[in-house]
C-alpha cells in the first residue's frame, strides 16, 4: 500500500493505493481502481466499474486535475514545505502580484508612512488593473520595482517595516 496525504483547498485526506491490485482506500471506504494512460496528461480511470476521464498537469506543489467540469489543485502534503501549506505559495503580509503582470503605477515613495490597506503599486494583467495594498501599517523601507517592470508572483515589490502597536 502506498499512502498519500492529498490536500485540496483546506481539506487533506489520506488515499491508500495498492499498485499491484488497484485496491484503494479513501474515507474508510474500499475501492477497486484501475487506470490507463490515454495520452499526455490523460488518464482513463475505472473506479468500481465506472469509467472516468481525468486530465492532469504539473502545478505548484502538486498537480492540477480536471474531472467532469471541475478543476482542482491537488497537493501532496509530503512534498509541500512545512510552512505555507494549503495554498499555492501565497504568503500573507507580502506585497507581491497575484499573477504575472506589468507595473503601471507606483503610489508610494521610500520612507513614506502607509496605513493598512493603503494602495502601494498598481499592476496590470490582461487589461485588468489590480492595486496591491499595504498588509499592515508601517514605513515603506524599500521599493524593489519600477514602472513598466514585468513582475511575477513571489517577487516582493514593496517592503514595509511594520509600525509598532
Amino acid at each position, binding site marked *: 500500500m502506498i499512502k498519500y496525504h492529498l490536500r485540496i483547498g483546506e481539506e487533506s485526506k489520506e488515499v491508500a493505493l495498492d499498485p499491484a491490485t488497484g485496491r484503494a482506500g479513501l474515507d474508510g471506504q474500499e475501492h477497486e481502481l484501475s487506470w490507463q494512460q490515454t495520452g499526455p*496528461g490523460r*488518464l482513463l480511470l475505472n473506479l468500481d466499474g465506472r469509467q472516468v476521464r481525468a486530465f492532469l498537469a504539473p502545478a505548484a506543489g502538486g498537480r492540477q*486535475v*480536471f474531472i467532469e467540469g471541475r478543476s*482542482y489543485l491537488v497537493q501532496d502534503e509530503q512534498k509541500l514545505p512545512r510552512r505555507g501549506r494549503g495554498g499555492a505559495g501565497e504568503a500573507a503580509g507580502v506585497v507581491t502580484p497575484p499573477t*504575472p503582470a506589468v507595473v503601471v503605477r507606483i503610489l508610494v515613495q521610500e520612507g513614506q508612512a502607509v496605513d493598512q490597506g493603503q494602495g502601494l503599486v498598481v499592476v496590470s494583467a490582461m487589461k485588468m488593473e489590480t492595486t496591491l495594498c499595504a498588509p499592515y501599517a508601517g514605513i515603506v523601507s524599500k521599493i524593489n520595482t519600477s514602472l513598466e517592470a514585468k513582475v511575477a508572483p513571489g517577487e516582493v515589490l514593496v517592503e514595509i517595516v511594520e509600525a509598532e502597536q
Partner: protein
Amino acid sequence: MFDKVLIANRGEIALRVLRTCQEMGLATVAVYSEADAGAPHVQEADQAVLLGPAEPAASYLNVAAIIAAAQASGAQAIHPGYGFLAENPALPEACAQAGLVFIGPPAAVIRTLGSKTAARRLMQTAGVPVIPGMLAPCMDAAQLAREAEALGYPVLLKARGGGGGKGMRVVESPAELAEASQTCASEAAKAFGDPALYLEKCLPSPRHVEFQILADGQGHAVHLCERECSIQRRHQKIIEETPCPALTTELRARMGAAAVAAAQAAGYVNAGTVEFLLDAEGKFYFLEVNTRLQVEHPVTEMTTGLDLVRLQLMIAAGQPLPFAQDDISPRGHAIECRIYAEDPGKSFLPSPGLISLWQAPAGPGLRLDSGVREGSAVPMEYDPILAKLVAWAPDREQARQRMLRALRGFAVLGVQTIIPFLVDVLAHPEFAAGRTNTDFIARHLAGWQPSLEQADLARLAYAAAELAMPAAAPVAASGPAGWPSPWQSLGAWRM
C-alpha cells in the same frame, strides 16, 4: 472586389475572420506581436507580418505599423476584428488615406456613436427610447448632484468615451457621488483619454438584449434578431444566447425596428450591434451601438445560418445585402460560453501562462472558435479570452444540456479558466428557467468557490497518476487489472 485581406487582430477572432476569407478564396495576411510568434492565427494565414513588441501600443494598436504591413504585403482591405482598433476612427481614416478598404463602418459613424452622449441625442431624435438621463456630459460636481437628485437614486455614472464596463459606477446615495465621479473620471481619462461623465437612471435588474444589424452602402438595413447577454462579470459578458427567453414576437418586432431606425439615423454601413436594456415590464431603452463584429456573433450565425464575416466583406466591397428583412427566419436556440483564462474562485483574476493540456469537446451542434491549442502561451498583455464554445439545439433546454455536456468534457490545464464557473451558471435552476438579468451573478453566485463534487475522484486520479505518469518520467505505465497501455499492446503490430 479586393483579393487579399489583412486581419488586424489576434487570437480566436483573427482565426474566425481568416477562415471565412479562405472560404471566399481571398488571400490572408496575419499580423502579430513578438508575444504571438508561432500563435495559431499567425501560422494559418498565407502571410504573416511582425508588428512589434508585445505591448499593444507598439503592435496591435499601432495604426502606422498596420498600414505599413498592408502595403508591404499587398493587402487591399483590413478587417479589425473586435477590441484593439475596431472602434477607433483612426484606422478607417488611415485606410482611406492609403487607398485601403476598411471592413467596418465609416470613420464618421464610429466617431459619433463612440461618444455615448452624442449617440443618446441622435437616438432620441430618431425616436428610439433612451434611458432617462443626461444628453450632454458635465464636469461640474454641483450640477451632477442636481441631475442625480432629479433622476432619483440609484444613478449610474458613465463615461462619454466609455465601453467595456470601464469608467462606470452605480451611485446609491448623494454621499457617494463626489468620490465616485472622481474615480470614474480618472478611470475614463486613462482608458479613453476623455474624463467627461454623464448620468443615467439606474434600472433595477434589467436584461441586456442587443440586436445584430446589417446595413449596405445602398441604404438597405436589416436586423438579424436579438442576443440575450445578461450574464456578466465586471460588466462584461460571459454567456450569450439567442433567442432571448423574455421576448415575444411582438416585442422582438418593435425592438428590431428600433434597432434598424438607430442604424439608419447614424448612417450605418456594415455589421453592427444596437444594445438595449429591457426591464421587467417589457420596456426597452437604447444603451449603445457597437460599431464592429461582436464577440458573441456566432450565436446569431448558428440560428440564422448566415456567415456575418462573409456579409461584412461583401458590404465592404460595395455589394448590396443579398436578402430583405422578411427573408430572415432564425431556427432553434444557440448559447455561447466565453472561455476566459481567469480564476473564478479569486474574483476572476486573469490567469496568464502556458496551456499544458487542451482537450476540446466535439459533437453535433457544437462550434468552437479558439485562438489557442495545447502548448500555446497565454500572454499577460492581452484580453484573457481563449475561445468561445457555442451550442445549438432545436430548443433552449436542449441547447443548455448540450452546453453542459460539452463544458464538462472541456479540459484546459496550465492556466485557470472559468469553465467550472460556467458549469454552475448553466446548471443553476434560475438560468434553466430563463430568468437571466445583469445582476444574475451577484444575486445567485456571489463569492463563488469551486464545488468539491469531484474532489475525491481527483485525489484518486492523483494517486493513479503518481504511478502511471510520475513527474520525472511522463511516459506511461499502465494500471493493474489487465489494462495494458496501447503502447504495450500494439508492440507486435506493424503500423
